[in-house]
């Protein structure tokens, strides 16, 4: 196993295990802290994929912004003296069957095939291992920040500005929604 593969498996294990804790933990606080490790794992995978700017963005925005916002949400929707920040689970078994089936359908690594009368052998599980993706030359590990900045300020200027307007509108809308009205 090469070093790249070892690092990949470590980060993938951190990401998936922490995501499982996010979904299955009884306490909301445990879920939030496991989410932190998921975001770190995904950032590590970004570094492995050569996306250095995106890894830094992931840490800044997800860990520094969204996770803190979610923790505020946890604290503000419970009474402060309420020590058991529990989150109940409903309809677990059907949802688990659906999600497990979806994962097997998408990513089952071992070949399972059916032999159909006219078509022949058809592999039914593990769609993403079976599909021949149009992979190209790929992009080696090079610094991406400058090129991303040039693309944002050049070819993708309109979506960039639209995203900034969207952020402004969303934050103003959020402030409007939670504001206490005087007449109410």
């Amino acid at each position, binding site marked *: 196993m*090469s070093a790249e593969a070892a690092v990949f498996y470590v980060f*993938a294990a951190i*990401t*998936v295990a922490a*995501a499982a804790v*996010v*979904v299955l933990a009884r306490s*909301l606080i445990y879920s939030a802290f496991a*989410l932190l490790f*998921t975001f770190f794992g*995904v950032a590590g*995978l*970004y570094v492995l*994929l*050569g*996306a250095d700017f*995106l890894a830094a*963005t*992931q840490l800044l*925005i*997800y860990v520094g*912004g*969204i996770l803190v*916002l*979610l923790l505020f*949400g946890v604290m503000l*929707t419970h009474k402060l003296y309420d020590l058991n920040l529990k989150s*109940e*689970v*409903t*309809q677990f078994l059907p*949802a*688990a069957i*659906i*999600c497990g089936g*979806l*994962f097997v359908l*998408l*990513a089952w*690594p071992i070949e399972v095939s059916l032999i159909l009368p006219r078509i022949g052998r058809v592999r039914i599980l593990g769609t*993403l*291992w079976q599909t021949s*993706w149009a992979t*190209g*030359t*790929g*992009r080696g590990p090079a610094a*991406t920040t400058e090129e*991303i900045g040039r*693309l*944002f300020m050049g070819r*993708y200027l309109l*979506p960039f500005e639209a*995203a900034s307007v*969207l952020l402004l509108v*969303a934050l103003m*809308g*959020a402030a409007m*929604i*939670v504001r206490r009205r005087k007449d109410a």
Partner: protein
Amino acid sequence: MITLPHYLTVSAALFTLGLLGVLTRRNAVNVLMGIELILNSANLNLVAFSRFGPGNLQGQLFAVFVIVIAAAEVAVALAIVLTLYRLRRTPNLDEADFLRG
């Protein structure tokens, strides 16, 4: 050798776990955490295709936009959750049945 399907498998695992969280949790903040997992899995797909694809940066740019929209979404969603808590004194989604006839 780590290839594209390896990353796609991690992403599929993240997506199905996030979907499980969205489907099973009653607490609205926990449902939002599931949505964040789903958005992260989409981002991982985009970056992986950007790395193994034709060798340009479009996938990473798209991932940046996804992060921006995730930030906007979580701000608005938390505002709605806080308003719900103020009205009903509960963060549970299945008790928000104002529109039931």
